[in-house]
């Protein structure tokens, strides 16, 4: 039984449907002609071979109602740009520009420029929307330019030049900042950067002046050539490549050097190793992954692993170390994980619905939810149970040094009553069966390996 992918409906020429574990792309006549042109090009063969473009095979018998159909390999985890780190969005932007340059040379163009067309596989960006390629028509400008600036360039500028994380913006407005909004935000010397002058300020001004004037045919008649697109792409690539986010050592980036972390890390690694051996998970979700030490253990053990954390700096470092590993990365605050949103509330699905784990790691997490986010322990355990799979969890007692920091100025009566070990064990017993447990040397932390009841 096939079902349309709720995130694939904007392009009438090409739509993705999920048929069990198969991912199919249904094409109309125009989509099929564009696919055949792409498939016959050297560009396609080389981009697939070097892993920049997802593989696609044309089906001999397309489903009724479609002119043609392709089958793609299924990706283990889909992430969205508002869950990416700076380096992930930057690499995706460079891929988008490089593919456009190479495609144009082969007489093909990419009709849009959205990061939702890119996913990360083995720590590298891969372009997944074959339907975005179409034959270049003489005199056509780059239709995706404005979208590229709003969804790639401006978010990167937000972080690199203004020091503001782009993820909350992209999560709130899937289309990204407008040129006018960016022009309002850009201050100081950066306003006079050539890239800012053209892509931000001039674009904002021209957008305001030309809002209701069609110019596409005029540009064609005036002799617009693909060389002009290539010149723009070259300048954009140089601008994007120059953008850096200097996050240094702050917040959780230093977590690995904390005394309690170093002391207990080996024990926790061995405990996780035993759980992986016991439960043999194919898919692991590491909640509060921090520097990804435990996610990496799971990935190296052969599980398709997803590391979730709210600290962009540690995840950015993890991304740069994840090449060759089956390790997805999602930046998200677990007290407020990415929701389902977009058209009909379904276009982008909730983070927890995309992960589909068969083992959850919750090391060094629940005290943050209980003490910093004030989530009642019962809610936390119920939430862990909702994944409906085994869980490896680290209980942190109220006497722990980290808890003292998290409690801060909160008074005892302002904290949840069932935060102590005995009531927490009772909660676990209601929803899980403990298969293994181990006290850490600190004396304030206990590891539990749990199977859902």
């Amino acid at each position, binding site marked *: 039984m096939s079902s349309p992918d709720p995130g694939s409906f904007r392009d*009438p020429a090409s739509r993705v449907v999920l048929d069990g574990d198969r991912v199919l792309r249904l094409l109309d006549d125009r989509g099929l002609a564009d696919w055949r042109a792409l498939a016959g090009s050297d560009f396609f063969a080389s981009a697939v071979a070097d892993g920049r473009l997802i593989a696609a095979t044309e089906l001999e018998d397309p489903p009724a109602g479609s002119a043609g159909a392709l089958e793609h390999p299924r990706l283990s985890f889909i992430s969205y740009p508002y869950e990416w780190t700076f380096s992930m969005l930057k690499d995706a932007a460079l891929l988008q520009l490089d593919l456009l340059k190479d495609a144009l040379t082969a007489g093909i163009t990419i009709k849009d420029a959205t990061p939702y067309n890119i996913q990360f596989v083995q720590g590298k960006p891969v372009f997944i929307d074959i339907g975005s390629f179409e034959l270049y028509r003489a005199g056509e400008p780059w239709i995706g330019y404005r979208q590229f600036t709003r969804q790639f360039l401006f978010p990167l500028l937000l972080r690199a030049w203004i020091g503001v994380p782009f993820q909350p913006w992209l999560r709130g407005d899937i289309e990204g900042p407008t040129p006018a909004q960016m022009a309002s935000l850009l201050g100081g010397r950066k306003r006079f950067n050539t890239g800012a002058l053209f892509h931000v300020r001039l674009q904002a001004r021209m957008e305001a002046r030309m809002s209701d004037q069609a110019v596409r045919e*005029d*540009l064609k008649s005036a002799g617009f050539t693909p060389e002009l697109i290539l010149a723009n792409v070259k300048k954009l690539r140089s601008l994007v490549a120059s953008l850096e986010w200097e996050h240094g050592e702050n917040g959780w980036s230093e977590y690995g050097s904390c005394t309690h972390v170093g002391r207990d890390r080996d024990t926790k690694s061995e405990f996780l190793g035993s759980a992986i051996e016991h439960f043999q998970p194919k898919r692991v979700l590491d909640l509060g992954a921090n520097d990804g030490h435990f996610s990496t253990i799971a990935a190296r053990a052969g599980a398709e692993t997803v590391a979730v954390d709210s600290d962009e700096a540690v995840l950015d470092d993890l991304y740069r170390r994840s090449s060759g590993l089956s390790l997805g990365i999602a930046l998200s605050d677990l007290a407020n994980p990415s929701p389902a949103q977009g058209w009909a509330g379904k276009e982008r699905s909730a983070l927890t619905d995309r992960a589909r784990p068969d083992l959850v790691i919750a090391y060094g997490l629940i005290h943050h939810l209980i003490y910093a986010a004030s989530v009642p322990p019962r809610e936390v355990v119920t939430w862990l149970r909702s994944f409906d799979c085994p869980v490896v969890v680290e209980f942190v007692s109220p006497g722990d040094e980290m808890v003292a920091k998290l409690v801060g100025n909160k008074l005892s009566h302002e904290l949840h009553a069932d935060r102590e070990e005995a009531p927490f064990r009772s909660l676990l017993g209601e929803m899980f069966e403990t298969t293994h447990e181990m006290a850490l040397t600190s004396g304030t932390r206990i590891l539990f390996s749990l199977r859902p009841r």
Partner: protein
Amino acid sequence: MIFEYLDPGSGSLLLQAVIGGATGLAVAVKAMRAKYGLGRGKAAPTPDEDDAAEDSAQPVES
């Protein structure tokens, strides 16, 4: 007519030519001249005025 599902933004389309250096700037100016008749002694009619002129040239039914 070819349907496009993405609004490319007219200002953004024109800007691409401007960014493309001297050749591009010439294309942008030419496109704008064609559209508005800028830089000529007498302004060319806008597309709306063109339409109006054609309309008025139609025989009037009585």
